[in-house]
């Protein structure tokens, strides 16, 4: 069979990293991508293997060779110059899975260690010249070869049972080697081993969540001793690396820990959006750590954080600080226990006393405006002092004494002009703060919900939005009582902060949730999105960053990239803290602590930006001009929009947007074109999955100067309002019928929900209207689609019973509990993929693939008299070409393509001769994507195929359709 497909792009887990000089060589699938470390720019890509992952790269700088291995495959490739060219070499097959390899004896030979604890020595033609076995033939999960001359070589073998065997191939009898040392310390599978030859230190990581650093100690009998054992991961520890001064462990929990040799944790980083970390590299000169994640991202960051800490514990007049805030100048305003307002000039380490209010000795509130230039100092009994920042210190503006009924319990700046105070009894005032005066604007009352505690407030479109301790949100206009109250928006600890940003209200809670809301015309707040972060206490927002606390640490979180930038020990949520720009200040044990961060230095450099963290369950592609827009969703509950630019010489995948609104895994995506003009196309996008949740978005793509402008807005959602959280939406189909847009959603309990999409009050908006639910059987539905045959619209459903089930549209729409009109058996069990091709008015071809490993092509005829009855004219069935669940199918003129979990992509030809199907397998391609969940296929004269699963591969065919 001739090769017809070529891989254009792979976005998948980075399984190996090699850092040489200023270059990073990264193994992605069977490709090696080369990047410049300093500029983080992509240079070149070379295809090494088809359909398998590169697990290791070894360098021979003398002869300019790379030994690259992938499971049992291996290659010795010659490169030119600065990795500008790779020679084409045949790949060799080892007897067993290669776990580690090394050039030895002045790069003249290569040693490999395989899973069955077998060491093989190969010459530069990759022929085995010698072979040594260890007397312990345990199954290995990891291994490492130490040193590079035959006499010195030692093998570290990590077993499934937690032991590490050390053996020396040069000491053997009959090519059989005895174990020299057995290191015991782990309780379970050893997942990685790294040995630093200079330090003679070895690190091992395990399934038991621990990492152990071992060092060769002793003068006479050098033995490896446990130097330290560290626990810093909540899941399996996948990889490690021993550097000259520290060692690194990284794992499934996406955490990368930097430890010193005594086992103290120096840093904790999470560069991969929560995806497991699979590979590590280190650039010594720049002190950069490079990591590759399961989300397909490749990231480098400086090992050194450059955080400057300072502690100010002496104040003038022996005062004790009560509250601290940051001013726009970076100076710190402090109110003390003695009622002093002071300003600390950071650059000069100097204190300036601004004011003293004896009546504020008992208690006071210090609040700074969003611009950090206006400061309010509020007393318990209604004393209100307003200050303005001027030349780095504060200047008093005005004073007001409020006759309070009870104590003032809190105050907030709504913006730089509007201020809010509230009292214990629930009385709330907003103030108009002028240059030299302050006036009451409105008075409000907090509703009684068991308690009245305001925790946050903001002004949004002329309305006041407040959040309380119970987690409720209240919206006020000018009336005393709230117009709308939204209950339990956040849980347990209430709403910690509210922001009005462009046209949404953002609320932060201490329940890990960052939520966005929209204010409707009737002053309701409706949810736009909810993002659950990996830490509970969300403190405040600063640009795209969020400051929060997790246990004893301050967390700086990048909202856009969804990752932790910084975790810094500070003792936890403080009585008084503030964050702005690059400074975090907090009070702890009567001292003011200042931390300066060098944000640009903290920000990781992304060589490849991340994609889905877990499996991609569904992907739809839209072709517009020279672009493909990819919409994908998966187990990580995030919907992502990416763009593939075909006009560029090197195909690239660029991010457009991502949405984290779905509560559970996303299983199906549907889209429908609603409007099209010369330069603007509007689609409705639906996605659904776990918890029977469906979200509807509007995607507007405008073409301007051959570049694309893309916007995506949430429109509506559906959510099953019962307690049944286990039912999943498995597939969706959008169809236009009698000028109505209908959405069918097939569920895991055999139900089909029907919706119609109508325009809302606002002509721009679309609304999802639930119509009815009907049932097929108590069978898990897997696919749903609609087709048009002999002037009839039909619905086709497929479930785990392997039947192709046809429903008459009018029956479905008009009958309350419709029944299907006919069913055709196609598979022994679930149908996981299908594709349909109309042959004539009454004949169609249905290609289907199931978890019974079968590819089935059915030629189906609809009865001319009763078009609800179907009959199978002929069937082609192949059960041997794939050896796993068939998850993708596509049929076009003369050809069809299938793909399966076995990572094969197969091209068949088909023809019908006298009602008989003749099919032939033409070509096979192996994709590097594991756990293939499906494919999107386009026929543009050549086939463009996006195979997705544990990553994404874009492959194209030769121009096959012409000949």
């Amino acid at each position, binding site marked *: *069979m001739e090769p017809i497909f070529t891989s254009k792009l792979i976005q998948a*887990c980075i399984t190996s990293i090699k850092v040489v000089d200023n270059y990073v060589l990264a193994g992605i699938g069977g490709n090696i991508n080369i990047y410049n470390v300093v500029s983080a720019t992509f240079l070149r890509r070379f295809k090494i293997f088809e359909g398998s*992952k590169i697990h290791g790269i070894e360098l021979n700088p003398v002869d300019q060779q790379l030994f690259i291995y992938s*499971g049992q495959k291996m290659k010795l490739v010659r490169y030119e110059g600065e990795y500008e060219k790779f020679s084409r070499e045949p790949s060799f*097959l080892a*007897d067993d899975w290669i776990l580690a390899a090394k050039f030895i004896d002045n790069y003249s030979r290569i040693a490999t260690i395989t*899973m*069955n604890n077998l060491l093989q020595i190969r010459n530069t033609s990759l022929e085995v010249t010698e072979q040594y076995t260890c007397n312990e*033939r345990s*199954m290995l999960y990891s291994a490492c070869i130490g040193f590079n001359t035959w006499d010195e070589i030692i093998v570290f073998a990590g077993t*499934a*049972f937690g032991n590490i065997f050390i053996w020396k191939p040069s000491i053997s009898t009959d090519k059989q080697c005895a174990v020299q040392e057995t290191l015991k310390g782990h309780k379970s599978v050893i997942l990685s081993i790294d040995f630093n030859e*200079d330090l003679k230190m070895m690190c091992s990581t395990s399934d*038991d*969540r621990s990492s152990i650093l071992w060092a*060769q100690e002793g003068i006479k009998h050098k033995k490896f001793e*446990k*130097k330290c054992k560290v626990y810093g991961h909540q899941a399996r520890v996948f990889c490690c690396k021993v550097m000259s*001064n520290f060692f690194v462990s990284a794992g499934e929990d996406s955490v990368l820990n930097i430890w010193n040799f*005594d086992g103290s944790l*120096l840093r904790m980083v999470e560069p991969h959006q929560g995806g*497991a970390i699979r590979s590590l590299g280190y650039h010594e000169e720049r*002190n950069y750590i490079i990591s590759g994640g399961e989300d397909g991202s490749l990231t480098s960051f400086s090992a*050194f954080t450059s955080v400057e*800490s300072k502690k100010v514990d002496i104040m003038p007049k022996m005062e004790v600080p*009560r*509250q601290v805030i940051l001013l*726009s100048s970076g100076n710190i305003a402090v109110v003390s226990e003695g009622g002093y307002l002071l300003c600390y000039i950071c650059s000069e380490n100097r204190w300036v006393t601004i004011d003293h209010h004896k009546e504020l000795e008992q*208690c006071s*509130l210090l609040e700074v*405006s969003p611009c950090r230039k206006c400061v309010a100092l509020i007393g318990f009994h209604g004393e209100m002092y307003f200050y303005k920042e001027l030349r780095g210190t504060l200047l008093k503006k005005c004073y007001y004494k409020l006759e309070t009924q009870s104590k003032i319990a809190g105050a907030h700046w709504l913006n730089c*002009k509007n201020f809010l105070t509230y009292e214990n009894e629930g009385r709330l005032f907003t103030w108009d*703060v002028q240059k030299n005066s302050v006036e009451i604007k409105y008075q409000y009352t907090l509703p009684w919900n068991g*308690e009245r505690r305001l925790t946050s407030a903001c002004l949004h479109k002329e309305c006041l939005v407040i959040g309380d*301790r119970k987690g409720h949100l209240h919206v006020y206009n000018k009336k005393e009582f709230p117009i709308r109250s*939204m209950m339990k928006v956040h849980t347990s600890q209430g709403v910690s902060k509210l922001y009005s940003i*462009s046209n949404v209200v953002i609320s932060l809670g201490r329940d890990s949730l960052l939520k966005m809301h929209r204010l409707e015309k009737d002053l309701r707040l409706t949810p736009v999105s909810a993002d659950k972060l990996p830490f*509970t206490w969300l403190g405040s927002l600063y640009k795209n960053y969020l400051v929060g606390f997790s*246990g004893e*640490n301050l967390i700086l979180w990048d909202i856009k990239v969804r990752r932790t930038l910084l975790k810094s020990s500070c003792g*936890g949520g403080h009585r008084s803290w503030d964050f702005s720009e690059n400074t975090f200040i907090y009070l702890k044990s009567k001292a003011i602590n200042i931390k300066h961060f060098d944000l640009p230095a903290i920000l990781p450099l992304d060589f490849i930006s991340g994609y889905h963290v877990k499996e991609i369950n569904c992907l739809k592609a839209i072709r517009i001009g020279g672009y493909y827009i990819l919409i994908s969703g998966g187990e990580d509950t995030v919907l992502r929009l990416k763009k593939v630019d075909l006009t560029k010489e090197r195909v690239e995948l660029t991010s457009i*947007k*991502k949405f984290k609104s779905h*509560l559970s895994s996303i299983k199906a995506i549907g889209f429908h074109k609603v409007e099209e003009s010369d330069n603007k196309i509007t689609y409705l996008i639906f996605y659904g999955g776990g918890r029977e949740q469906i979200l509807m978005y509007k995607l507007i793509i405008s073409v301007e100067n051959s570049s694309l402008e893309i*916007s995506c*807005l*949430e*429109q509506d*959602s559906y*959510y099953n309002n019962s307690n049944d959280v286990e039912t999943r939406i498995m597939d969706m189909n959008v169809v236009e019928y009698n000028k109505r847009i209908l959405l069918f959603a097939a569920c895991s*309990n055999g139900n089909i929900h029907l919706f119609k999409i109508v325009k*809302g009050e606002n002509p721009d908006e679309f609304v999802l209207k639930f119509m009815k639910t009907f049932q097929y059987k108590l069978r*898990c539905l897997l696919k749903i689609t609609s087709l048009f045959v002999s002037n009839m619209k039909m619905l086709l459903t497929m479930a785990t019973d392997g039947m192709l089930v046809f429903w008459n549209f009018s029956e479905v729409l008009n009958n309350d509990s419709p029944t299907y009109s006919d069913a055709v058996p196609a598979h022994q*069990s*679930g149908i996981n993929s299908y594709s349909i091709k109309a042959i004539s008015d009454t004949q169609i071809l249905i290609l289907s693939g199931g978890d019974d490993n*079968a590819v089935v092509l059915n030629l189906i005829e609809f009865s001319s008299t009763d078009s609800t009855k179907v009959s199978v004219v002929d069937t082609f069935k192949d*059960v*041997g070409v794939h050896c796993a669940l068939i998850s993708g199918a596509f049929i076009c003129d003369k050809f069809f393509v299938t793909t399966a979990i*076995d990572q094969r992509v197969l091209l068949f030809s088909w023809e019908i001769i006298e009602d008989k199907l003749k099919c032939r397998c033409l070509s096979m391609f*192996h994709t590097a994507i594991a756990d293939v969940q499906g494919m999107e296929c386009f026929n543009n004269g050549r086939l463009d195929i996006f195979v997705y699963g544990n990553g994404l591969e874009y492959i194209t065919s030769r121009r096959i359709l012409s000949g």
Partner: protein
Amino acid sequence: MGKGSKDKRDIYYRKAKEHGWRARSAYKLLQIDEKYDILEGVNKAVDLCAAPGSWSQVLSRRLYLNEKITISPRYDLDENNESPKDDEIEEEESIEPNENVKIVAVDLQPMAPLPGVIQLQGDITKLSTAQEIIKHFEGGLADLVVCDGAPDVTGLHCIDIYIQGQLILAALHIACNVLLKGGTFVTKIFRGKDNDLLHNQFLTIFKEVYVFKPSSSRNSSIEAFIVAKNYSPPDGFDPTLMTPFLNVGERNFDQLTGINRIIIPFMVCGDMSVYDSDVTYPLQLAGEAEPYIYHEPVQKPIDPPYANLKNMPQPKPVSEDSPEMEVLAKPSTSKSVGDEDAQHHPSKNESPAESHLMADANATNEDLLSLLVQSLKTDDPSVQDSLANLLNTLGISAIEKISKETETTVSSGNHQTLEVSQEIQVHEIGSSVPSESVEVTMVIDQEQTRNSQIIGQGNAFAENVQLEGQEANQDTLQQSDNFVINWVKYERGTCTCSMDAISHEGECDSDCDDESHNM
């Protein structure tokens, strides 16, 4: 998720619990038997990788205890009145166990005993294990060898499938050494890349080979089973010489698509009336007279290797200005430094920072008690902090009561507070009644409001109440979901909703001198 949640999602999981099976995989063997009659006339059986023992259980009940087990839903739907009594009947009438039957279960781990099953702790990659098995058969050979083992998976599919392949070969090696001619071998496989080559190797030593997927195996699952019947090794085949590590390597793929390829039939359990493992069934099944009752798992999971993780102190990063950080500050090129370092502190500090007991989301009563005991002994504020944290993670309102009653600072009121908390703690944990927990939240809420007012009176305990546990607990999750339910009916219009929105910063409209500042 509630208790019944997994029961709804997975009918076989639930049925397994209801019928006393140790794991849902018992149904897989039963379905294989239904299809291929593998248990017919079997007297000597071997279960490899047996733990937790659900397949041994099937062998024991079907062969040794001579039970009839029907697995179609009719069992539940029509004869449901009898079905729960099945087990009882045996106990009462005690059907004569078939003493001719010998079942040997092999695993590395021990498992709970089963009637008629001889347990053997051994490694299936070793030939000695096979010899040991034969010993139990008193010289005879086995009629049936089954293996439902799976390796520790790494998450990288290619490696996992390879390792599973190695495991199958090890099992096959044992099977070849203990099977009677004409015997049957059943093993789990992962359907993945290039695995059909492995399956084809079975054809050289078995007359009939099927790849079977029971309907109790989920649609998305990559597992399937090889049922190899009629063991007939070629003449002169010495199984002891067979290497357990056959080459399962990647070969020329043309042989797969060529004309002479051998295709092993792939079968799925034919009876479509059985339960669908992908369906979300209601807890109360139609036709089931008995009301649904939640059943605890028959066999709780054995201690995972990371079981003691929760007892491990979670390390906190050292502060940025500590001298330890210097190792990161400079590019570490000097190699001599390392040699010195290697001599330093031999294996000091093996369990880092033990004195810093910290709150942990997985904290148990035992942890709490030990902390309490420790805190009673010491005045160490860090212990007090941890205690408060821990109590907080456990959602205990004791703190509130303490601080109310004492109204003193920690240092002076230690003993008093801790006694109180100890009392309350036992009560609270013992009865986690929802109504009470609501109260708890409220109580803590008040405490925190007081703090957020920054009145400066809150004592150290109160401050610590604010410290969050490191992980969100399950309750928070559920409540947040409830929130979404409340919102379902709201209408929507257009709105941008991406994270980009955040980068638009609020404009400041004050009379500040500088107009161009940010929020």
